[in-house]
């Protein structure tokens, strides 16, 4: 049988523990900064620190997205596909998804032309980036800003 005094001591203890966890929970890390850092890290992993130039790559996706669960996306690289000079890989990243990675595609001279299309999920309005790796070791990129009305991945909004 718990006495009234014991009950009060226990209740106070429980309350203070709840208060402590809640104050810790309020110290949420800056999600936006973390995701930007994750995106930079993901791109750096692909390029290995090599310089990333703008141009040559054309990333095509609708600027206004009603449903982020299936967004048509295509990447075209203006580069011949010969044995000596071709596109080796195309990588796609997003800024606002829980993970920056979307797709890494590996192609070669047998592709004929450097074009790729797929459907992706986008969680929130932000930047989508495509990076192309050429056979000479150079990296080219293109980015597109999109506005998303219905978010993908996260039913209760962005965490």
């Amino acid at each position, binding site marked *: 049988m718990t006495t009234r005094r014991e009950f009060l001591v226990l209740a106070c203890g429980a309350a203070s523990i709840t208060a402590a966890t809640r104050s810790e929970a309020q110290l949420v890390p800056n999600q936006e900064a973390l995701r930007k850092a994750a995106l930079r890290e993901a791109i750096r992993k692909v390029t290995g620190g090599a310089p990333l130039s703008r141009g040559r790559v054309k990333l095509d996706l609708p600027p206004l997205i009603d449903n982020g669960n299936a967004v048509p996306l295509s990447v075209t690289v203006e580069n011949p596909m010969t044995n000596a000079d071709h596109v080796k890989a195309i990588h796609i990243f997003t800024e606002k998804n829980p993970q920056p990675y979307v*797709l890494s595609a590996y192609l070669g001279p047998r592709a004929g032309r450097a074009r790729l299309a797929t459907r992706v999920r986008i969680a929130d309005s932000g930047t989508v980036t495509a990076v192309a790796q050429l056979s000479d070791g150079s990296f080219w990129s293109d980015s597109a800003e999109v506005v998303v009305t219905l978010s993908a991945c996260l039913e209760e909004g962005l965490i």
Partner: protein
Amino acid sequence: MARAIITMPAAARRGEIIEIKALVAHSMETGFRRTQYGDLIPRDIITRFVCTYNGAQIFSAELHPAIAANPLLAFSTVATESGTITFRWSGDNGYAVTETASILVE
């Protein structure tokens, strides 16, 4: 039973660039969604796609949770010789599906 749909021409001239569209039925569960009780739904996605033309690899891709359900990949290849093009998807929980399509090159 997994269902895959391949869209590509049945015949082509030698040296012609043909477009291939490969779609497979899969929910691509992201691993970030929760049930109504707050439990995380485990990730179940296709992680890898490989396309081979008469045994030689012509295209491959690594897929991530940000690929929409029923992943569709459209790419191209040069029609070099008659034969079969094989498509292979593999992923979480031992998922593996293979589909083939034949092409006639004149």
